[in-house]
């Protein structure tokens, strides 16, 4: 498997707070990678750095062997990375179809192809939103909004999908359905990195786990190896998971 995303010694500080410190990791193509850690470990900051929302103070970020450090979010999305936020970033006045349509739009001012309907309909189908395309996002329940947010990211046809807390606030049934959706996306060839506090669900889903604490990577390995890691247990998991 080839490396799709690589961070090299990236750091980011907010005033006196070192949110991310000399962080280096690689994400293999086709894998589902879980990024876990206690609150304030710097997980979301890593997503912000990858997506260009924040610029690293030092270090470089490479996507498919291309340096994407400091690029703007829309340029990074154009290169093939998409992010699904914990709180849906949709347009409340637009229908679900229109929200997905926006993600499939070309950034060019003049584009011959108006709205490629194939990725829109495929994303809607995968998210189970086909029958709700003419609804407004506000009419969806929490789990529906989460599926819409992922569908929005998928509609950009990414190679790498970053999922920010996809399971937060969902019931176990909804988590199961969402996990199946994420696995389907991986089976289609998408690489996925997800951040979540629901360790059990993450461990069941992912191929590999990265554990962060105080802005640093403290462990990297398979779910089985991570659960047994004494350092991870001490910093984050506790002894219940052993």
């Amino acid at each position, binding site marked *: 498997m080839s490396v799709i995303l690589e961070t090299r010694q990236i750091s980011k500080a907010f005033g006196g707070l070192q949110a991310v410190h000399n962080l280096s990791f690689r994400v293999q193509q086709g894998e589902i990678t879980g990024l876990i850690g206690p609150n304030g470990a710097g997980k979301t900051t890593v997503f912000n750095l990858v997506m260009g929302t924040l610029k690293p103070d030092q270090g470089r970020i490479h996507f498919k062997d291309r340096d994407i450090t400091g690029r703007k979010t*829309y340029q990074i999305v154009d290169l093939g990375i*998409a992010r699904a936020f914990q709180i849906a970033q*949709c347009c409340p*006045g637009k229908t679900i179809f*229109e929200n997905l349509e*926006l993600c499939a*739009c070309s950034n060019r001012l003049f*584009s011959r192809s108006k709205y490629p309907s194939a990725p829109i309909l495929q994303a809607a189908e995968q998210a189970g939103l086909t029958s709700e395309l*003419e609804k407004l996002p506000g009419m969806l329940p929490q789990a529906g909004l989460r599926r819409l947010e992922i569908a929005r*990211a998928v509609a950009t046809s990414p190679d790498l999908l970053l999922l920010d807390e996809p399971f937060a606030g969902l019931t176990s049934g909804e988590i199961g359905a969402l996990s199946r959706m994420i696995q389907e996306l991986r089976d289609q060839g998408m690489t996925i990195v997800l951040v979540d506090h629901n360790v059990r669900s993450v461990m069941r889903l992912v191929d590999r786990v990265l554990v962060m604490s105080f802005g640093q990577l403290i462990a990297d390995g398979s779910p089985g190896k991570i659960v047994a890691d004494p350092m991870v247990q001490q910093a984050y998991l506790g002894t219940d998971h052993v």
Partner: protein
Amino acid sequence: MTQRRRSPASYIIFGSIVGVLALLPLLKLLPTSWYAPLIFANFFAIFAMSWDLLGGYAGQMNLGHALFIGVAAYTSGLVSVHLGWPPWFTIPLGACAAVIVGALIGIPAIRLRGPYLALVTLLALIAAYKLVLIYSDVTEGISGMSFSPRSFFPPLGYDVPLAQVKVITYYYSLGLMTLIGLALLWVARSRWGAIFEAIRENEAAVEAAGLNPAKFKVVAFMVSASAAGLAGAAYVHLPILPVLQPGGLDGVLSLDLSLSIIVASVVGGLGTIIGPLIGAYVMKLSEQYLSELPLHVDAFRFLEGQGWITLLFLVLLIVLVLFAPKGLLPAFLDRLLRRQAVDVEIREEGRKR
């Protein structure tokens, strides 16, 4: 495309309004005194619709829309007067000048939002006004340029009777309004329009979708400025415009004009293009009607002079905004849809029984 954008409703309403306006002179329903306000209303409708694309669709609060109108009007007017170039050349030239100014004003919009952007647009308008005063040897300053635009207006010469001039000018302005209105409607319902709306609703969502909001904001400014500028430049060459002046009642760079454009858009319904069109006609025609009221109705004669008519007009606008805060068109459509929904409900109830 979705149902909403595919719906021909906007074009049907637009066509109906244009149709009615086109029939008025033919059916001799228009008193001579109403030509001038209607001609101005046609231009005012273009100004309001072009503002709506930027303010209503893209959510860019522009308090200085008259800047685009004034820049185009002065460019076209000055080039015509000082260089003697014909209107068919100076009108597009004026529109081009407005587009350039639109792009320049659009650049700060990349960083600024809400009241800060509103302030920049307002200051730019005041700066342009001052510039006209500073170069008063060329622009004739606050008193305005008293050239003879009639000679620049291609189909008309000095020998055409005034009544005919009014009718021709009316159709000229209506034709321009129709063309620019259709173009703005087309843009609003296109991919650009969808992106403008998304920028207004959630700029972060636009960027997360892989689109560059900054680029599309500047485009919104340029398209809005081009429409306003084209109308502003054409307005200068109207045979019935007495002088080209920056401020005052007919001022093309006045804050009054900017604000009344926004009022018309709000009264009609933001983000609809058709709403501001309706708002513009409602405002201009009710203004004219109220000003004529004391002449026709004895009971209102006491309102003559004294500024009571303006006050009454302002109170009416406040009442309109209070009772239809989303604007006249959305209020009408909401009521229509609600009535349809009730009808469907009653029919279904009846079927069940």
